[in-house]
């Protein structure tokens, strides 16, 4: 089944298009990276997919439905800087928001909701901080709270905006394992990601963006030197090294195989 589909999608701010005629599909059960330089429209794409921003033309479909019809099955991690972390709320308060539902905003949250939130906090290793005010967390811990909140949504498709920014290597590894487990359970995880080196290791599907779609598909198809140059403007030395790595892909793959 197609988990995500953008069709002729154009989105603009003040008549200035920041996504132009984007067209691609993502199959179900993949870990997907959205990659591109600053200002290339990654956040905008995620917001359009969540139905937070209106498209000028074209549309997004999730599991062949419009985002509005299928919100209960979508999880979301906004960019961390998008909120005020001095807000008077505890880690638990924020995680519980993952259990809020449009129709049930007025009713009580059940014990089961609470258990789901607790479980999500444990999975990202933030349970011990549950009663801390969010302003007293480090940046990486705040990021983990946001991930816990999205896990509490128990969705089938997750859209995450730079979830790994500021997260240390050990937590990154453990969160990545959670995401891989979710993938094995048939869930789709789409995330904006900045680090090209780790992108290679994390994702099985990549969407390369620079206002226009540069390429979308399995990572070895997409992460070619030519595509990377188109997306990043061909100035960076690092690009050819990445492309080299992709070419010599047997090597990292074997390493991963031997770990298992």
């Amino acid at each position, binding site marked *: 089944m197609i988990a995500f589909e953008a069709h002729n999608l154009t989105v603009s701010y003040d008549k200035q298009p920041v996504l132009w005629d984007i067209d691609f599909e993502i199959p179900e059960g993949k870990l997907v990276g959205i990659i591109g330089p600053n200002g290339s429209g990654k956040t905008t794409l995620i917001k359009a997919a969540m139905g937070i921003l209106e498209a000028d033309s074209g549309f997004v479909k999730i599991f062949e439905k419009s985002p509005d019809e299928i*919100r209960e099955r979508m999880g979301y991690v906004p960019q961390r800087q998008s909120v005020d972390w001095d807000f*008077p709320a505890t880690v638990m308060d924020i995680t519980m*928001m993952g259990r809020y539902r*449009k129709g049930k905003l*007025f009713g009580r949250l059940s014990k089961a909701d609470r258990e789901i939130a607790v479980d999500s906090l444990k999975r990202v290793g933030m349970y011990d901080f549950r009663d*801390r005010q969010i302003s007293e967390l480090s940046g990486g811990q705040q990021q983990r709270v946001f991930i816990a909140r999205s896990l509490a949504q128990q969705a089938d498709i997750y859209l995450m905006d730079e979830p790994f920014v500021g997260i240390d290597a050990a937590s990154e590894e453990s969160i990545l394992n959670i995401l891989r487990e979710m993938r094995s359970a048939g869930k789709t995880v789409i995330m904006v990601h900045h680090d090209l080196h780790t992108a290679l290791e994390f994702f099985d599907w990549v969407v390369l963006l620079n206002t226009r779609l540069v390429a979308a598909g399995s990572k070895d198809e997409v992460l070619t030197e030519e595509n990377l140059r188109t997306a990043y403007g061909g100035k960076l030395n690092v690009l050819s090294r990445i492309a080299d790595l992709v070419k010599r892909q047997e090597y990292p793959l074997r390493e991963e195989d031997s770990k298992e």
Partner: protein
Amino acid sequence: MNDFWIILEGSLVAVSCGLLGAYLILRKMAMVGDAISHAVLPGIVIAYLVAQSRSSILLLLGAALFGLLSTFLIEILAKKARIQSDASIGITFTWLFAIGVILVSLYSGNADIDQDCVLYGDIAFVPLDTLFLGERDLGPTPIWLQGFNLFLVIAMIRIGYRGFLITSFDPSFSSGLGIKTDTWHYVLMGAVSFTVVLSFNAVGAILVVAFLVVPPATAYLLSNQLQTMMIYTVIFGVLSALIGFYLATWWSASISGAMAVASGILFLGVLVYQKLLRKRKKFLAITN
């Protein structure tokens, strides 16, 4: 008895303004109350001119309508014209207030309406306006109005607690859940507008603006959860009214003014207490 009514009215205003003000502070819109209290002027004048009466209900409605209108204008300027929200607040209320001033100066010649009677209520007069049911004295009318309004505000916050919480903290995530953030915003602003106008009529502008901002700001310093912030807001609001009243008696000064001053003193007190506490903690951490 009069003293009691004045303190009670002050507390009722402090609590309803403070609870709503807590949300305004968290949404970085603390000065909206100030804006509304000015922007209502044309509403009051127009209501008076249309109805040719000083019936306070009509004037209140006209005022509340313009209060709400000003929050729409602020939103539109901020969102569509991409102006900083403090600037759009400034533009909106000076503009509406100016229109009000012009209307007053144009029509005050043939009508008994002037800026003073429109703009400044005084809490000292609260006990004079008594509500009678037949022969029975039910106490001052403003107390009943304010009490009823406070009841509505508390009911709204209780029922909509989670909606206001999530739309204040993370509007993007809320929209992602399909929650109508704009609707929540305007419900809140409607309540703010009505409360400001009602309180303003009873206790005057400065006190309303002070109660909207200062007790919740004080509470913010001490709270790590929204519920705690609300509880502290109530405590500091009532304390401000109480202390302010006795300060005013002592100084024989304006009661509204003294209540506003009291809220400021409480804020400073808490701020200093916190600084000292932090120093002490640091000291203990170092010596250990």
